[in-house]
């Protein structure tokens, strides 16, 4: 992990086109401003982890096509 120390209003630039600025830093919380192309995905880590977990759970679902078909035929 690359570790850098920044003060309020200082930034880092990733990959030439992603800029992260420390806007505020108080009370155990840090407010970050992120400037990146709109096609770059930015996630709070816990949200990203949730999506990964959800995909993994969905991929291990033990369900057959028959069962799904039966669900529709009501």
């Amino acid at each position, binding site marked *: 992990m690359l570790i850098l120390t920044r003060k309020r209003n200082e930034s880092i630039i990733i990959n030439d086109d992603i800029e992260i600025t420390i806007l505020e830093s108080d009370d155990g919380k840090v407010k970050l401003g992120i400037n990146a192309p709109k096609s770059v995905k930015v996630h709070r880590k816990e949200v990203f982890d949730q999506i990964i977990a959800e995909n993994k759970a*969905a991929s291990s679902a033990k369900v057959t096509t028959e069962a*799904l078909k039966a669900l529709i035929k009501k």
Partner: protein
Amino acid sequence: MHFDTAHFGQLEVQDHSVITFEDGLPGFENNKAFVILNNYDTDEPVPFMWLQSVEDTNLALVLTIPYFARPDYAFDIPEEVVKKLSANVPEDLGVYAVVNIQDQLSDMTINLASPILVSTKTRKAIQWTLEDNLYSVREPYANGN
């Protein structure tokens, strides 16, 4: 091209049926080539299909067309994402939600927070997380239906 599937045995598909996730799927970043299968022999529209990995037989996820469960499902997609998929206009994108089924089929949930978008023209796909926080990764499918 021939490949093995989790639920339909060995299949042959045209190369142009293969959809490509350039970034893979969250949790499966190395799996980029998939096909969407719905081997249903019924005349009724069935809103469920399988997203089957071409590279890994055992990787298959159930997808649904979210508008069946939630007719008012709506979201904005940044233009840049549409361009990344090389689609011309947002209407060229197919929208799917990953379905999670654990114990009871009737308790299934769908991920409306990160829909899968597929360009009907280029066959490029992405699982895009919506910015608004309006939807959950586990929306109950049966919302009084």
